[in-house]
């Protein structure tokens, strides 16, 4: 992938370290298997008020180890289908990170941005090069560049469209 993908949105919420998958998407909703419906239960137990603040394309900012815990893909789907355009975190737990790439939700690693961004900040995110710009001040933060494999899947819109193109009839 060569073309730069630019995303723009606001920081809808800033969260701490070790936000686990039970907080993101409680176990009691795991028998919901329509991905689109998972967004209705994002953060249901601990901070349900965040849902109503998310406008399509907004960002979530979090500390280290975001998405630790279960392999439940509904946690990633819930973030995506609640309208989040990308998650920017100091770090991600590995299964959540892979699920994000596979569902076409950008997961951006930037300890610098995670430390400095605030709720309400308007951002521009250059996904491939890994640059986050705070629009109001022009400040920039470096993010880890996407590895080519992840970039390929993300730009395809996720693993399903990628494989569909490769194998589907």
């Amino acid at each position, binding site marked *: 992938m060569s073309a730069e993908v630019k995303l723009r949105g606001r920081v809808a919420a800033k969260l701490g370290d*070790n936000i686990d998958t039970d907080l993101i998407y409680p176990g009691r909703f*795991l*028998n919901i298997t329509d991905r689109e419906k998972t967004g209705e239960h994002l953060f249901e137990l*601990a901070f349900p008020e965040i849902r109503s603040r998310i406008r399509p394309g907004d960002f979530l900012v979090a500390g280290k180890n975001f998405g630790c815990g279960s392999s439940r893909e509904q946690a990633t789907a819930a973030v995506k289908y609640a309208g989040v355009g990308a998650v920017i975190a100091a770090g991600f737990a590995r*299964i959540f990170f892979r699920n994000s790439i596979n569902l076409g939700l950008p997961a951006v690693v930037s300890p610098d941005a995670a430390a400095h961004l605030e709720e309400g900040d308007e951002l521009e995110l250059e996904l491939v090069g890994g640059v986050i710009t705070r629009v109001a001040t022009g400040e920039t933060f470096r993010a880890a560049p996407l590895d080519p494999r992840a970039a390929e899947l993300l730009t395809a819109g996720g693993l*399903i469209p990628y494989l569909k193109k490769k194998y*589907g009839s």
Partner: protein
Amino acid sequence: MGMTLAEKILARASGREKVGPDEIVVAAIDLAMSHENADLVRKSFLEIGVARVWDPERIVIILDHRVPAESERTAATHKAIREFVHAQGIRHFYDVGRGGICHQVLAENGHVLPGMVVVGTDSHTTTHGAFGAFATGIGATEMAGVWTEGRLWFKTPFTLRILVSGRFAPWVSAKDLILYIIGRLGADGADYRAVEFEGPAIRAMTVASRMVLANLSMEMGAKVAFTPVDETLLEYLAARTGRTIPESPDFAPDPDAQYERVIEIDLREVSEPQVACPHAVDNVRPVSAVRGTPVYQAVVGSCTNGRLEDLAVAAEILRGRRVHPRTRLLVIPASQQILLEAIRLGYIQNLIEAGAMINPPGCGPCVGVHQGILAAGETCISSTNRNFIGRMGSKDSLVYLASPAVVAASAAAGEIAHPEDILEEEVA
């Protein structure tokens, strides 16, 4: 320069001479396991639009999270899975009453062998590192990709080596050791890493106890976690596969392998049982620090600690005693085989006579969907693996994680207790 076990297995599975940390490889998958979320995998697989799975012999599906079905929605999920496995010719399907918790069922039926690459749509798939397999959790859509292609990309992990020496103190078990390690390293202390457990204390452990270490390594972020492939393990496998697996250098790291970090632990450091306090698995304290905390529910079970040796220690502590009036004790054998064996050995009778409720083999209340949900304000002590906010019910409930021995002792005391506290008292 030699290779770690993770590097060796990924090199073999990707057809390379040698791989090193951070290298991306595409590895052939030897075994692909799913539970109820096979229904999500199925949906993604149908979206991809391929007619047949890559190899029905390498797919294992085990119903365990909601067994028997607790709702009409789950019943429909189970039904859809049954129809799918039938249509695809997937023989290794363990339905309600035929198996138990997925990780235990894979183990006791000899599905996992040393050197394999195993993926499962369950984070605790790391458990199978106890069998010398590169075993890790993935999401449902990624599994649909595996069902399609039979291979998957991995970033070769750095390896953390944990050397354990010394002898376990009385009432200190594998659960206490791994909680102690997680408390030291933190919830992200092994993020993206492979872990190799080694040392005389590890080699002296039963296979069941080694599974506890590999299983809970997930709670410090590990991608995979190995314990040694030795005589103890090969005997276990021979009994379950009916064939002899020879020892091989393919199943061990090279002596000159490169490690990111080597940690040495003397079991004298773990002088008493450990407890992970709410709401994080790395919030670990010695049992003496939380002794006396009232508990309303106690749980022995799960893929972490629902095996025969776990039921044995609970039965031993509770034999001739009663569960405290304030407390209810739930016991969930990890599999049908374990339940049967525990009946034969009298453990189930001991536990029932003490006032325990025996739940059917499966994940039980660990994932907070049925069979033992907590109300607001309730405290639970559990031999399971997660104590996140709302994990077992209300967001205003509290879960403490501990060994089966501490759970059983706490059930008898009605408050968090060291087994010694209970055993000092006269048997009623």
